[in-house]
């Protein structure tokens, strides 16, 4: 629930997913994981600034901004950044 509520003493924002819209629309390149090469080390999700990679390495493409950090840091080169057709 957002907006001013009855007992608010100050202008107060409330947490909601998607507060900045679907940031996945910013992307130019999309990360694609090759599960054959992946050794499940977790380094990609450790470094994702936006925490959009789950523990089982599913990337939430509605929000992934396509920064490329996961691909750049993956020790197995298991993530490719592919130009996205929109």
């Amino acid at each position, binding site marked *: 629930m957002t907006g001013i509520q009855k007992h608010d003493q100050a202008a107060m924002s409330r947490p909601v997913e998607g*507060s900045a819209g679907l940031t996945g629309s910013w992307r130019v390149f999309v990360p694609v994981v090759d599960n054959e090469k992946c050794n499940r080390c977790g380094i990609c999700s*450790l470094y994702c600034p936006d925490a959009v990679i789950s523990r089982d390495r599913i990337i939430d493409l509605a929000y992934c901004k396509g*920064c490329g950090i996961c691909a750049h840091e993956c020790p197995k080169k298991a993530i490719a950044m592919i130009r996205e057709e929109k």
Partner: protein
Amino acid sequence: MEMDTITEIPDDEYILKCTSACAGCGDSLTLRYVLKAAGPDIVLVMPAGCTAAFQGIYPKTAFTVPVVNIAFGAAAACASGISRMFLATGRTTKVIVYAGDGGTLDIGLQALSGAFERRTDFLYICYDNEAYGNTGMQRSGATPLGAKTTTTPAGKAEVKKDIDAIIAAHNPPYQATACASYPQDLFRKVRKALTFRGPTFIHVLSPCPPGWRYSSEKTIEVGRLAVKSGMWALWEREHGNLAISAPTKAAMKKPVPLEEYLSVQGRFKGIDGTTVEQLKEQIRETFHRFREEEDRP
């Protein structure tokens, strides 16, 4: 060390998908681990800056912990008041300031000094992207010598202000430095800082792709090169006793050439040889000071 500690870090996230921070933002990564370490029972006090801007637009926020948004120069004063109120009412909620380098080294400095002098029980975190990021990368006291910003188009002529020495002069029980590229080290230092009573301080280098002019996938690499070259040092000081963190110990033995750090960033493009030598001399001096301080009985 890296691998073992990933598992110690809780899965909980306190930033909902997604903020409006730039892709590859080092500050976002820093905040992610600060919050993982601190947990939900906190109040964040935040002055103007990138983080305050990307939390969301009223009435929506991406942060699931309470944030008091406060005037640029007033974060530490505001935190002092909240901390005192919690003390008076017996609340154990932790008060954490999360402020940029401009909000810390420049405009928030007197409030910060005052709060440390009053021994306010709080943790002050300065995320350092070495300029006024939110308003378009103007130089700050934290901008390093030779770096181009929108107000230093030929490269900054002055050296970076040593805020850590200023903090040390207040004799806090704990202070540390960290870097977004070493999230496990950052996590551990935040956890540790929160075990002390009184004012504690962590200064976190947080690489910024648009501001430092490198492409977004290099954020971790750039921060790592900062540490490996000695441009940034990782350490902690507990009741005055210095402990150099492992990556900086390695850099003191064998630093990577500073040029490797400078050349990946557009803000150092065209830097002249004399300035590079000055930066290298600074690094040698810092390492020398560390060795002397460590050797002191």
